[in-house]
């Protein structure tokens, strides 16, 4: 616990001042706003762009915006977007090449310098960013494009006040309270007419920014109110997942009949991988101009649910939906540990909400676990005879 950390109170009416302080420092402000009936992450101009007074209703295959009866600015769970769209964009030009009498010239794409401020990142999302950090910067090779963006972000975390219907961060130990990876962390407190944020500083730069704002030291009641907000969210998780020995459970279930069951429902549409904040897979596309003198290579998000993904000459290694769903889920919950030292799932629930047929990763794990229990019970009965 960070009991000793200083906490401050920022009035909700002063939130714009936070954005202004960041804009003044040259940050592009990225945060939640309503578009096409969903709360998405876009560039913000002012607090007016925030989804004030809105919340979301979420369940397997269901997402719906609803009016709140208050003016909460961040009274919703996570939407279809995640911060990876900025840090690991869906489409990136890697380089351009020309070919002429001087031979082949390849020019790396210049890196974007604009600093990004992420407004209202949730704890599960900070965990997701940390997961992608390990993918793109944690090994022998570093993705310089990711790194240059990543190193310049300013993160304003929001401790969740509303658990979504598909949230299970408590099970994954990734929330609902931000514990690392932020410059400032805020808890939104709404009590009738009283509307303020309890702020915690996560970095030197965060402290510097906060000192420019009209904040006061938080007293005991405000601190307790903030704790209660998070505690209530913790109690209201929409989903749970038993993660006991989950890696071994899945490593031991490659031939489990449940995969057939889920494959009968899965459309292999790849929605889950697109909305997942940790899914990092990409493919590359080469394009040329009509004269054939200029070529470009683009990197695009890809999904292990496509047939092309595992194609080697002769065919796809994972030809069936069963194999592809198994790959995705086993990767998230088991092989990820061996690859990157952590779970690949942060419990944000997006894959459940945005699955058109409502396939639920927590339900799939439970189903596999259930049969394994039966197997084990069967074994022990046999053994005692």
């Amino acid at each position, binding site marked *: 616990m960070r009991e000793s950390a200083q906490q401050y109170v920022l009035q909700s009416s002063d939130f714009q001042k936070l954005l202004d302080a960041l804009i003044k420092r040259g940050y592009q402000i990225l945060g939640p706003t309503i578009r096409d009936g969903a709360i998405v992450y876009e560039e913000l101009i002012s607090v007016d762009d925030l989804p004030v007074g809105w919340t979301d209703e979420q369940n397997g295959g269901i997402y719906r915006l609803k009016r709140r009866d208050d003016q909460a600015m961040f009274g919703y769970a996570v939407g279809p977007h995640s911060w990876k769209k900025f840090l690991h964009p869906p489409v990136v030009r890697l380089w351009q090449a020309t070919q002429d009498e001087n031979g082949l010239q390849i020019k*790396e794409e210049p890196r974007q310098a604009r600093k990004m401020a992420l407004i209202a990142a949730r704890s599960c999302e900070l965990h997701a960013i940390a997961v992608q950090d390990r993918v793109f910067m944690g090994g022998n090779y570093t993705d310089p494009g990711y790194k240059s963006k990543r190193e310049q972000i300013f993160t304003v975390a929001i401790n969740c006040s509303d658990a979504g219907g598909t949230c299970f961060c408590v099970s994954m130990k990734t929330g609902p309270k931000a514990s690392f990876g932020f410059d400032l962390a805020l808890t939104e407190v709404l009590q009738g007419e009283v509307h303020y944020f309890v702020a915690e500083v996560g970095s030197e730069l965060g402290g510097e920014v906060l000192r420019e704002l009209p904040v006061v030291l938080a007293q005991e009641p405000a601190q307790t109110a903030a704790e209660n907000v998070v505690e209530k969210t913790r109690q209201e998780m929409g989903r749970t997942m038993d993660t006991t020995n989950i890696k071994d459970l899945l490593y031991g279930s490659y031939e489990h009949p449940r995969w057939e069951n889920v494959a009968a429902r899965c459309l292999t549409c790849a929605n889950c991988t697109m909305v997942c904040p940790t899914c990092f897979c990409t493919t*590359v596309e080469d394009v040329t101009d009509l004269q054939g003198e200029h070529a470009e290579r683009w990197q695009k998000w890809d999904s292990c649910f496509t047939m092309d993904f595992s194609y080697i000459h002769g065919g796809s*290694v994972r030809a069936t939906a069963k194999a592809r769903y198994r790959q995705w889920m086993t990767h998230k919950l088991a092989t990820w540990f061996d690859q990157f030292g952590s779970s690949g799932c942060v419990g944000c629930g997006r894959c459940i909400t945005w699955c058109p047929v409502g396939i639920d990763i927590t339900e799939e794990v439970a189903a596999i676990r259930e049969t394994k229990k039966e197997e084990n019970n069967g074994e022990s009965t046999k053994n005692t005879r």
Partner: protein
Amino acid sequence: MASAPVHPMVPEPWRVRRVRKETQETFTLELEPAGGHGELRFLAGQFNMVYLFGVGEVPISVSGDANDPHKLVHTIRAVGPVTRAMRKVKRGDTLGVRGPFGTPWPVTAASGKDVLIVAGGIGLAPLRPVIYEVLSKRHQFGDVAVVYGTRTPADILFSSEIERWQKRPDMQVHITVDRAAATKDTIKSDGQERPPHATIWSGNVGVVTALIARAKIDFRNAIAMVCGPEVMMRFTVQELEKRGLALDQIYISMERNMKCAVGFCGHCQFGPTFICKDGPVFPYSRIETLFSIREL
């Protein structure tokens, strides 16, 4: 050494110095640096991502000599759009290359031991650097045997080089084909004799696994390096086990779809491993359990 940090996805230009047709569908490209960059040092078993302007990029094992890094040699089988287009490159053309990537064959670990190389089809190409290296310090190894299988005699790679190897007293080379070219020779209806087989394929016919028994090596003190189609590798491993090799004496080279070669793109996952950075060469003991899972 390196100046500014270079994006691992950006290739460097290499000029084609020589093109050699190996078989109907395979060819070898010899490349030299064409930009300001220098040589490319590699270890036997590693691969490069080779880019053909405007067409695309494919992972190709280095098939040349690691002692000669100025000359980059790739043997390519024309099976997809990119490799088929690469078949048309000429001397003087420029390709993009990034690499080398991946794990090498355990040549160092094989020092003091017998060496068994089992290759199938194009699988000889990634193993040729091992043969070069072993022969360049031949005294460090015990008995050395190469067992190589292809579909037909016409599919045998590096045939003139193989002939030279076969003449060496310090290595065994066993070649087999799945089917020998049919001949139009007829047998005299009454005679016992027939035209000498020397005019047709006089080598072995049969699967490569059946030839492993011919290798005169101490299987208990050998390192086996295996590369070929997965089915062939599976049965080769079984045969090697039968001959007394422990699973950690057997190394195989795996193939999966690769786009980035550095672990970013996710395509080449094989269970918990990434073929591009944890492989392509694995001790079989490490992937034994994965190998039997279908559609992994």
